[in-house]
């Protein structure tokens, strides 16, 4: 469906691109180090990194108000960081420590922080969609004025949960922002082979929900589209879907050897690294010097390294923790 919401291609002075760059740098540093730590056996369980997709997390995250809701996926570290989740508590959780944000009971796939509106990463593909619809229902019925964002991949669009959730958001006209990160791969499979209608925007049209595609590797384009879409949601105009076209640098999970990616595809996407795209624009427009950008990336790396050192020093959870929080009183 065509839409009245369009991302501006021109730089707007209102766009805080330097901040968006800093968020992307933090996500890049976090995911890069987490991939290494997982490879080295320091982080247990399953880990799914969002390297290459930082533009979507930072662009959408930066466009939201502080108390907006976010429900995300198994590949959710970037979304959580972009919403301000504490880096130390998040890293400690990945290290399975008692001081982790979920006391060591969630892990990479379940980091959550309701105090920042983050309803959690989620290990069930498509689950974020109905949950975000419910958050939108709360926002509308309790007049909270909060937008509920569902992040999901294009792989989830083949789940029934997507279709049921989009339809519910539409008929109830809820303030739900649906953000599809189309990174081409549904686990090991090329998504374009799994549907006759690869465009998520086109599929969304069937539900009467406005939608627009955006270059997910251009953080400013994402930010502008998400800002306009969130404003629409807040104005009571109902849901909106963003299809952010991007690419997953690493495998479905860390360690996935990715034999399914054609030669050259990865390299061609890395040429459009979202940090490089933004960095070039910032330096060209005088928004920041390359030295300043390098410093932002160094600071992000140092922040993550400090969180790692802290996490390493923390004790394992008390065994009693396993029995806590099953039920509330």
């Amino acid at each position, binding site marked *: 469906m065509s839409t009245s919401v369009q991302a501006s291609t021109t730089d707007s002075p209102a766009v805080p691109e330097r901040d968006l760059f800093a968020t992307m740098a933090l996500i890049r540093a976090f995911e890069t180090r987490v991939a290494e730590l997982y490879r080295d056996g320091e982080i247990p369980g399953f880990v799914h990194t969002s390297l290459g997709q930082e533009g979507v997390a930072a662009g959408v995250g930066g466009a939201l108000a502080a108390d907006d809701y976010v429900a995300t996926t198994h590949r959710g570290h970037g979304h959580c960081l972009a919403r301000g989740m504490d880096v130390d508590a998040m890293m400690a959780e990945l290290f399975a420590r008692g001081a982790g944000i979920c006391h060591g009971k969630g892990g990479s796939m379940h980091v959550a922080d309701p105090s920042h509106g983050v309803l959690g990463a989620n290990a069930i593909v498509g689950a974020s969609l109905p949950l975000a619809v*419910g*958050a939108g229902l709360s926002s509308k019925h309790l007049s909270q004025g909060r937008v509920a964002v569902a992040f999901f991949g294009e792989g989830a669009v083949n789940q029934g949960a997507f279709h049921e959730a989009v339809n519910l958001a539409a008929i109830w006209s809820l303030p739900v922002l649906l953000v599809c990160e189309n990174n081409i791969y549904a686990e090991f499979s090329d998504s374009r082979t799994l549907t006759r209608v690869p465009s998520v925007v086109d599929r969304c049209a069937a539900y009467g929900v406005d939608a627009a595609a955006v270059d997910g590797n251009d953080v400013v384009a994402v930010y502008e589209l998400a800002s306009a879409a969130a404003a629409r949601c807040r104005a009571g105009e109902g849901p909106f879907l963003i299809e952010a076209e991007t690419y997953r640098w690493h495998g479905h999970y860390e360690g996935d050897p990715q034999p399914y990616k054609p030669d050259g595809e990865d390299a061609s996407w890395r040429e459009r690294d979202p940090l490089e795209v933004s960095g070039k624009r910032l330096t060209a427009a005088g928004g920041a010097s390359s030295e300043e950008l390098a410093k932002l990336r160094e600071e992000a790396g140092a922040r993550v390294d400090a969180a790692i050192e802290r996490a390493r020093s923390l004790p394992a959870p008390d065994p009693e923790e396993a029995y806590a*929080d099953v039920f509330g009183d």
Partner: protein
Amino acid sequence: MSSATEAPAAERRYIDALNEGMATALEEDERVVVMGIDVGAGGGIFRVTKGLYERFGPERVIDTPIAEMGYVGAAVGAAMTGLRPIVEIMFMDFVGVCLDPILNQAAKLRYMTAGALEIPVVFRMQTGAGKAAGAQHSQSLEAWFAHVPGLKVVLPATVADARDLMLAAVRDPNPVVFVENRRLYGSKGDIDADPLPLGKARVARPGEQVTVVTWGQMLRTCLAAAEEGDASLEVIDLRSLAPLDMETILASVRRTGRLLIVHEAIQDFGAGAEIAARVGDQLFDELRTPVRRLGTPTVPMPFSPDLEKALLPTSKAISTAAEALVAEG
């Protein structure tokens, strides 16, 4: 209806007590909403929600599409963000298309977030064999839910509990699976002045020789067996499977030395097996006879009323089993 069978003014039907429980919950807390297929303007397929839509409006009593995955998931998301939904799954059998929001979301999100998220949601499910509804509209699946940590499972057997357990479930900060047997909908009874809390079993009829533990619709059949047979039965209405009030069961079995567990659900791997195991574990030396169970044989529920009757536990089968226990030791 003849005047001889007309209920006194204080008596209500079970279905009206359910309705009254929901109405009171809606009245006392504006965060409470009722959701489900035709629960609103239609008043519910069994008329359980009759009049609520007119009284509380479409924003509080919400009709949904036939899309259980979507709207049950949305109810869970709404519960995470401030609402207290009572969501109806029209037939318990239909939970097959919306298990994820119950199993992986509602039951686990409090735990996985170390208590940061609270999920106060009631999943109303109607069940009941004996109405020629066929194998996809007759199943008693309560043991599935009792097997999942994080879910409470309540099964009101009386008119008083239809109202009181509904209110207790809505006020509970945890997800509650609320099982209604439609054969009870027309049953009549009084309301308790002093309701028992959720999690407490009730001695429905005191007796000396055999403890009979049951729940839901089968309570009536067990009470009839106690009237008809020669053995003195102490009938315990469990009211909830999770929490399971073992204290009341053990106290009774310590006196009688004999235990018979009766449920409408399939006997094999049913909740009766768990109770039998716990009693065997804790009272082995005090049992006069082996623990016995009486449930439905392991076959899908057939359509023919004659075949249904052949499978479901009858009062005669219960009294015979109890008398056999007394004869045994």
